[in-house]
């Protein structure tokens, strides 16, 4: 992909009760934010495993956001406290081995903070855009990969592209 057209791929792991609902509120309030980020709903921020983040990077994510209820507001009382400890550690570890803080960001967004949700997504997207592609990880991903011959590859991406092209023709 060339640099100019590059759009970051961002994954957000969010808890069902606060951040997901906050995102719903952002929607009902018709707040606008970039479309780069896709949400994966889990029940509680306490249930997000660090491996999820690595998996996201392995699948080409340029950035990851983890978000849950504010401390003391957890639907399950304490899940986010455990999460916070986990992320404190994991973030230090990633930082040490060379993954910048901006690649993996964290927030607390309550169900009433639709605005904050939109702001956070915007900020994360901008941060990642400023950092550029996560090339160092992607380099690892591309080891042992192969380009399928063009005549064979009538699959996913091209199909997607094609359907957009049709749109422009219309």
């Amino acid at each position, binding site marked *: 992909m060339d640099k100019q057209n590059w759009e970051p791929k961002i994954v957000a792991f969010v808890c069902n009760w606060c951040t997901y609902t906050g995102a719903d509120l952002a929607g009902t309030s018709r707040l606008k934010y970039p479309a780069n980020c896709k949400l994966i709903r889990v029940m509680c921020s306490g249930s997000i495993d*660090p*491996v999820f983040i*690595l998996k996201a990077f*392995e699948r080409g994510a340029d950035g990851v956001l983890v978000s849950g209820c504010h*401390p*003391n507001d957890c639907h399950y009382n*304490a899940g986010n*406290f*455990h999460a*916070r*400890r986990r*992320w*404190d*550690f*994991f*973030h*230090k*570890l*990633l*930082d*040490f*081995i*060379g*993954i*910048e803080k901006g690649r993996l*960001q*964290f*927030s*607390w967004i309550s169900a009433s903070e639709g605005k904050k949700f939109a702001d*956070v997504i915007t*900020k994360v997207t901008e941060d990642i855009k400023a950092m550029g592609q996560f090339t*160092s*990880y992607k*380099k*690892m*991903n591309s*080891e*042992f990969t192969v380009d399928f011959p063009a005549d064979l590859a009538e699959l996913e991406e091209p199909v997607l592209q094609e359907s957009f092209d049709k749109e422009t023709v219309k």
Partner: protein
Amino acid sequence: MNELIKHAKELLEKGEVAAVIGYRQVSEKRTKPVIITEPEETRALVFNEYCLNNLAVYLTKARIKLLGRKNNKSFKLAITAKPCDVHSIVALIQENQIDRDKIHIISFNCHGVVKDFGFDFNGDNLSSKCITCETHKPLYYDKLLGEVKETPQARDSALERIKEIERMPHNERFEFFRSEFDKCIKCYACRAVCPLCYCQRCITDKTIPCWIETSSHQRGNFAWNVIRAFHLSGRCTGCGECDRVCPADIPLSLINRKMTIEANNLFSFVSGRSLETPTLVGSFNEKDNDELFM
């Protein structure tokens, strides 16, 4: 050393323990672990500067059951443990892997062990965990042997390397660790030798879903080493065994050491130092660091 042999022999003769996990000398500057079940065999036991294995790794639930069983009755196990090995035992007790009443800890006043077998014990060949060691006398024991001696002086080169790495920019750091991890052949010796890696099935052996790619290509190695380090964060007692056994010489203990330092900075906690302090994983404080979160 006679005291050790005498004590171990007594334990076995009196039937207080079913087995003694200890060290035996294989050559002048080399020892290896041994499991002794007969009083007569205790004469092989030694303790010296060449006892660098952390025998706590043998204290798995299954082994304790298996070795502790004699004539259809279950007995205690005795283990010879350096003060630092006792840290591992403490961590294992806290994680419900060992019943304190089921083991008899024979510990020593310790002034350090060698880094490599086969060479003299001195400052140049001092295991890096001994350089910063503060527990020359064990925190918990059932029998204390040996006298206090001075530890040779040595430079804490591991800490210097950590500092050095921290000074690198992120992409260089990433490249450094990527290339180090790339050497990994996934023999899992680090896992096998770690007393705290007692899981019946490791996360990397889970296939549904596949948590960590088992292939030892770059990203598989990266994921394995990162997650291994994460799983030990706040739990690692710093015995350095993983580093010692790694056939690819990956500086695993640098990461473990770094995370231990962070645990101490963030939560004032060092694993395996006290049976009373709640473990870092599995507990929380409402006042934990919140800076990370927007």
